């Protein structure tokens, strides 16, 4: 249609977001802001043991405590839950076993919070402590006692291996092989809003829960499963999240508890987690140990990579199976590796479960990869910028692992960021103690497959027009601060030629909105956005058909712009949008249309090929400038430059905000954030406890620490994306950590091969350097991990067809045939 070529009225213009006013007036209602008459309050009793058998729970005294209405224990929840069908391993309240300090074991529901807290102290739990598994290496060495009775073997949860072409051969044929070990400590989301939920029975006696969840649809399914109530009798309302970052993706024990209590008592039940509890719920960044071997030619061409990762999974599966894949699968998207081998192992440990945090599994290997490239450039005497430019993937490429690189603006990002940061003028030329570092990254605009196997759309949108000219958009997408409501409003407004003020967005409510899978993997803009385009285009077509005769033109010559509807060749005549709507409603009846979106089928066909494909990848390139005080190791970052290939910025104010917010979170991780644990002395139970379950001890950057960020948005619309818009919420976080590490090398000539990069590590590396030892701090050994025989797949350019080409042991023969 001609229409699509019209200039854009809404998209690309800086604009106040549609929910902006509610946020600055305090009117926006987060979950904990909700209250209902006769509401009760729930509190959870959590395990003080990292690993123990729950022998008995005696709640009699608690039940008799004044104000207490109900006490729930593991016995009330016989059915387990889990966000992924392959790791349904968690109970709302632990039944026989607790697996981390903080695992919930019982719940008290009382007339007020104070009484509930008092009653918690009256619950007597008998535990039999078991040996805790403190880390992945410990878990490999101690297969018994097993934390779970499922998984690969012992305490290994997931173990996988893929080889795309003969990597040993690729490394043998290289001029040299860079071999490095990296470690990335775990960290947590720390959303400002602590999780809260309010459950009650509605006027029809059906269960409704309003909750700070990123994924109401998945929560809906899990509630039905655990409570054994049909989905049609449950309504999940995702309240606006006060930040998510992945921390509100998993269903939480507390959500089942208040729902169950509301069903039992017939009264509204609310819970708000304390900040300490939020640290225990976690599901954040996995600590990952990595080994990376990369073959390189003298000219600086990469010949192949062998990547091994070892993940500390914590006590439950969570998104772990996906996280495990993500510690490798996106590695070959930025640069061309003719061959690629990836082995990953996730071990259960007795700590809060790890899961998806902004960048989900990919920041860790990206850190290693980008630091290693810097080392390779150093060894070749080459500018790290040139090395990267030499190896970039191109638009439309397949990777060795059969991922389709769609549009890519990485080259533009690199050139742009080099230009605005004066890379050439600074690298190696700043005074001692100051330096610059460069790194790149990529991220998915939505994953190719849903979390549970199904053939239905990933997102649905319904648009309703009424004769007032109001456009109402219904979609299951969840506003977590990223601006998904604004994305929907902008897309529908643009398509129908109105302004966003005429659009009302209703989202994240399983009772009234079509399913959208949730706010994760940067999928909302592309998936809900494409569904919204389809719905709005259908409506526009109906309107055009209804008014074209009056306008004296053909339907596809009707233009919708700025609240007006007119003929393309006679822009003077026309009618208002409201007139067009009334005319169409008179002819066609009530006006509504739906749209839906399913991502294209990925090219890879081997088992496991479902993780990694995306309809569009975003790309980023980052330069960090750092100043290092060589006496104290103190790191100061004066400025960061970020070029991000976004396809198109729907609302540049928000896009820029996402970039800066990502840079902030990346830098905060790079410099200080650590979700780490320590053993209490034996006489104090020997338990494995969180080092810093408070915001004061868990350090994050403040306004005073945050450097200026200069953002360049690279816009080249992606054909798979709505109005060309790719993701921006996660990608720009990823290159910050390696860029900082590389800047520190440029500044003082030491390598910090682990995250976070703290002053003590810099000092240790400087001391080593002064003593003539390797100027490096980082892991020095990699344990022997029993990775399985890899699934062998031939890369596209070696005659593969995307399927597993031979069973494991025959791979050499397979390669020889080629």
């Amino acid at each position, binding site marked *: 249609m001609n229409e699509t070529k019209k200039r854009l009225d809404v998209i690309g213009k800086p604009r106040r977001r549609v929910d902006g006013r509610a946020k600055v007036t305090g009117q926006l209602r987060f979950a904990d802001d909700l209250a209902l008459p006769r509401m009760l309050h729930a509190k959870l009793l959590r395990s003080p043991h990292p690993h123990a058998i729950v022998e008995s729970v005696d709640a009699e005294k608690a039940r008799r405590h004044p104000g207490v209405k109900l006490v729930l224990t593991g016995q009330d929840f016989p059915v387990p839950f889990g966000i992924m069908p392959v790791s349904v391993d968690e109970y709302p309240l632990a039944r026989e076993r607790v697996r981390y300090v903080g695992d919930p074991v019982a719940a008290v529901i009382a007339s007020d919070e104070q009484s509930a807290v008092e009653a918690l102290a009256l619950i007597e739990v008998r535990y039999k402590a078991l040996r805790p598994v403190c880390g992945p290496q410990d878990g490999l060495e101690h297969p018994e006692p097993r934390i779970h009775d499922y998984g690969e073997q012992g305490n290994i949860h997931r173990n996988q291996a893929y080889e795309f072409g003969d990597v040993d051969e690729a490394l043998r044929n290289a001029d040299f092989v860079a071999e490095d070990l990296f470690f990335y400590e775990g960290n947590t989301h720390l959303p400002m809003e602590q999780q809260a939920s309010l459950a009650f029975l509605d006027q029809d006696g059906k269960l409704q829960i309003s909750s700070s969840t990123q994924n109401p649809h998945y929560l809906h399914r899990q509630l039905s499963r655990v409570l054994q109530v049909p989905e049609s009798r449950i309504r999940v309302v995702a309240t606006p999240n006060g930040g998510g970052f992945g921390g509100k993706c998993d269903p939480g024990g507390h959500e089942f508890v208040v729902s169950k209590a509301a069903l039992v008592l017939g009264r509204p039940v609310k819970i708000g987690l304390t900040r300490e509890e939020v640290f225990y719920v976690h599901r954040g960044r996995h600590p990952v140990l990595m080994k990376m071997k990369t073959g390189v030619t003298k000219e600086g061409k990469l010949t192949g990579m062998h990547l091994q990762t070892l993940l500390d999974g914590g006590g439950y599966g969570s998104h772990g199976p996906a996280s495990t894949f993500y510690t490798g699968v996106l590695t070959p998207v930025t640069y061309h590796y003719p061959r690629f081998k990836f082995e990953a192992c996730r071990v259960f440990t007795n700590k809060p479960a790890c899961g998806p945090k902004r960048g989900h599994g990919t920041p860790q290997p990206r850190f290693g990869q980008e630091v290693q490239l810097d080392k390779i450039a150093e060894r070749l005497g080459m500018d790290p910028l040139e090395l990267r430019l030499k190896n970039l993937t191109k638009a439309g490429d397949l990777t060795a692992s059969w991922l389709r690189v769609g549009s890519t603006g990485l080259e533009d990002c690199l050139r742009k960021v080099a230009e605005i940061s004066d890379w050439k003028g600074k690298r190696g030329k700043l005074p001692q103690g100051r330096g610059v570092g460069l790194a790149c990254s990529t991220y998915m605009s939505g994953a190719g497959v849903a979390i549970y196997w199904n053939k239905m759309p990933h997102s649905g949108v319904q648009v309703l027009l009424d004769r007032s000219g109001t456009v109402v958009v219904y979609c299951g997408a969840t506003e977590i601060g990223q601006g998904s409501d604004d994305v929907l409003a902008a897309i529908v407004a643009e398509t129908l030629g109105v302004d966003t003020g005429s659009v009302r967005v209703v989202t994240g409510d399983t009772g009234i909105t079509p399913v959208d899978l949730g706010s994760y993997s940067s999928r909302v803009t592309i998936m809900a956005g494409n569904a919204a385009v389809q719905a709005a285009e259908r409506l526009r077509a109906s309107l055009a058909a209804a008014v074209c005769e009056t306008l004296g033109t053909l339907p596809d010559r009707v233009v919708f712009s700025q609240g007006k509807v007119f003929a393309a060749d006679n822009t003077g005549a026309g009618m208002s949008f409201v007139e067009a709507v009334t005319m169409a409603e008179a002819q066609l009846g009530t006006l509504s249309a739906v749209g839906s979106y399913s991502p294209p089928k990925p090219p890879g066909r081997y088992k496991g090929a479902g993780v990694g494909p995306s309809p569009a990848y975003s790309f980023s390139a980052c330069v960090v400038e750092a100043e290092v005080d060589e006496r104290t190791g103190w790191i100061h970052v004066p400025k960061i430059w970020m070029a991000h290939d976004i396809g198109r910025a729907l609302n540049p104010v928000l896009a820029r905000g996402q970039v800066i917010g990502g*840079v902030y979170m990346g830098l905060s991780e790079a410099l200080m954030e650590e979700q780490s644990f320590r053993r209490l002395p034996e006489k104090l139970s020997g338990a494995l406890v969180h080092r810093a379950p408070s915001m004061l001890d868990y350090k994050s950057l403040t*306004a005073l620490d945050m450097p200026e960020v200069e953002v360049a948005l690279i816009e080249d619309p992606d054909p798979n994306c709505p109005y060309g818009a790719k993701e921006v919420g996660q990608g720009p976080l990823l290159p910050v950590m390696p860029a900082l590490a590389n800047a520190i090398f440029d500044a003082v000539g030491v390598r910090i091969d682990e995250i976070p990069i703290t002053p003590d590590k810099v000092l240790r590396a400087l001391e080593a350097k002064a003593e003539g030892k390797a100027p490096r701090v980082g892991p020095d050994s990699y344990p022997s991990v029993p990775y399985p025989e890899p699934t062998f797949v031939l890369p596209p350019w070696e005659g593969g067809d995307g399927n597993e080409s031979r069973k494991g042991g025959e791979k050499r023969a397979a390669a020889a045939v080629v």
Partner: protein
Amino acid sequence: MAAIPERVHLTMQVNGEAAPVSFAPYKTLLEVLREDLGLTGTKHGCELGECGACTVLVDGQPVLSCLALALECGGRAIETIEGVQRGPELHPLQAAFADCGGSQCGYCTPGVIMTAKALLARNPAPTRDEIREATAGNLCRCTGYQQITEAIESAATLLRAERT
């Protein structure tokens, strides 16, 4: 020891109006505002004085309402985010936060706006560093602070223009 009364009763000045309220004596100002006065615009991220989300103005000074006992607030002037708006219009700070990207998820926003309001009252033309210093106690996980600083700067300009 004298028995602790179950509820106490007092009157504070909240957003310019007398607000008589009775509440359990252990309650913080944050809890009384949110639970007993229904003013849920003030948020909390820790209730331990670590995050700044609960900042309100007490007699014009920014105070962490999670650390203040409501019992001590009788007769004092409390200003919360609900009192910032000018009738149907947004206060320039509110407008600037909405327009400049100073608010993403919006959870830290009420606390930051209150902090900024106190800053601009005592320093109508703060430098960027002064803004950063004043807001350093308000954690924000979304914005990376830059657009918050820009919003406060732009509101300061507007407010100065209003005064002249």
